[in-house]
């Protein structure tokens, strides 16, 4: 890969991305709940996409990353979750992925 690739616009959250975020938020909420149980009760914290992603990153890779690196991963991953560009044209149901599974060896 070479640097400085031209990127496309990064528009707002898409419906399916929202579902993804909601799934992550669920995970994060569970994580937050288990952490909070022994602490003083606090006002319900709003679960943002960033917090949801952070919880997953900490859970899965936290042991390998510094705090700064966790922030960077969250930032990049969060960008991905909200990065579905809105196009003038869109995919059709008949547009298949550009690879083919073949049963023969």
């Amino acid at each position, binding site marked *: 890969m*070479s640097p400085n690739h031209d990127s496309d616009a990064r528009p707002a959250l898409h419906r399916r991305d929202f579902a993804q975020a909601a799934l992550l938020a669920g995970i994060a909420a569970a994580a937050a709940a288990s952490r909070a149980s022994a602490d003083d009760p606090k006002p319900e914290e709003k679960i943002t996409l960033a917090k949801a992603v952070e919880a997953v990153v900490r859970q899965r890779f936290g042991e390998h990353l510094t705090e700064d690196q966790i922030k960077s991963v969250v930032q990049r991953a969060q960008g991905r979750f909200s990065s579905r560009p809105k196009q003038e*044209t869109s995919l059709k149901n008949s547009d298949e992925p*550009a690879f083919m599974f073949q049963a023969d060896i």
Partner: protein
Amino acid sequence: MPEISDNILFAPIREQASQIKERKLSPVELTKAYLDRLDRYGEKLGAVVTITRELALRQAKEAEQEILMGNYRGLLHGIPYGAKDLLATKGIPTTWGAEPYRNQKFDYDATVVAKLRAAGAILVAKLAMVELAGAFGYGKADASFTGPGRTPWNLDYWSGGSSAGSGAATAAGLVSFAIGSETSGSIITPAAYCGIAGLRPTYGRVSRYGAMALCWTMDKLGPMARSADCCGIVLAAIAGKDPNDASSLSKPFSFPEPEEKKKYKMGILKNSTANIQKEVRQNFEESLKVLGQFCEFVEDLELPKLPFGSVVGTIVNAEGAAAFRDLLESGKVKELRAANDKWGGYAGLLLPAVDYLDAMRWRGPMKREMDKLYAPFDAIVSPARGTVALPIDRDFSRAYPGTGGGTAIIPAGNAVGQPALSIPNGFGLNDLPTGIQFTGRAWSEARLIAIAHAYQERTDWHKKRPPFPGKG
């Protein structure tokens, strides 16, 4: 045999081959001369991982004996070359440019290496590269366990990536030609930054067997050499169907083209010089004057309005994270050199499968729209990169504020697997080389080479030699 002069070391393959065939040039002496230069200058350029001295001398002696006995195999017989260190070579370290793999060895040769051996070429070095071919978004030149690759035009500037050593070693006359790889820009960029020719073949033209996988559906292997003609000679030797790589195809590659066209039809993209360095634009405009001698132009073409950048990003991130999942999940990724590479891959592991699948679904419409754009033309011409080589000591994002990389032609072409060829077309800021790029429909490499060759017959940018290392 006389001492090998710089004129021979920098000569194009066809000229070296002619002298070898006529027994005026010894493959052994030529190999020794390149080995000597690799020894002396390879490290200063950050261009070399392993010098394959023993193997090279053995292959050179075999070549010399065969040729003396009248068994001349063809234009690459006795010609020394270097391979990007992501190509497996039996018994020789294949490091992928990365600390965690610096002792890795394979017990087989990559198909490209085997094909070049069969053609009689001599492997003199495994060449440096950006670690893991830039899988995790390195962001600066110092991203290889061998240090940053340096362009021989100015050692304070990067030789480009990820085929950094292939570019620098070829430009500095440490090898006659090299093999590089491109997923998105990794041949075109170092070719432009080092002032050499670099050919990215159509996806499937060259077998990937034995090459490190960064992105199975986008990785391509191709030649980097002194001229377009040299690239054609090498591509002819390495192209073809390989049973070990299901993506390879046996499309004919007729090189040189049987009949040279008198006039080529060339497209120019709208905004292809927007937001690029002034000197790059000026050189591009000068090149168009030369090309105008044998091309007719159609201007103001537009790339299809499709998400090339994000599709390439999504596919590379997903496939790269899968390819190196063990490295990421073990935490050994922190042994990589560039700060960004120590964490950049983790985000790829979180990428939703449907995003990857949708990115792959986009490639069908993209192929059709790009082919529609390209069909009326022999090629579309553009600056290879929007700037000259980037300084070693700065993050890429801060290297040239206010200028960009040019149009989205690099990700667009790579998303759809089209070929591209970059050749030098002048000098820009700090006397660093600039490049011009020809892109075409799938399987049109021979046409791109013919156009670039016609340009190089009318110019001498490809004959310029860099100040480093000076007189050998």
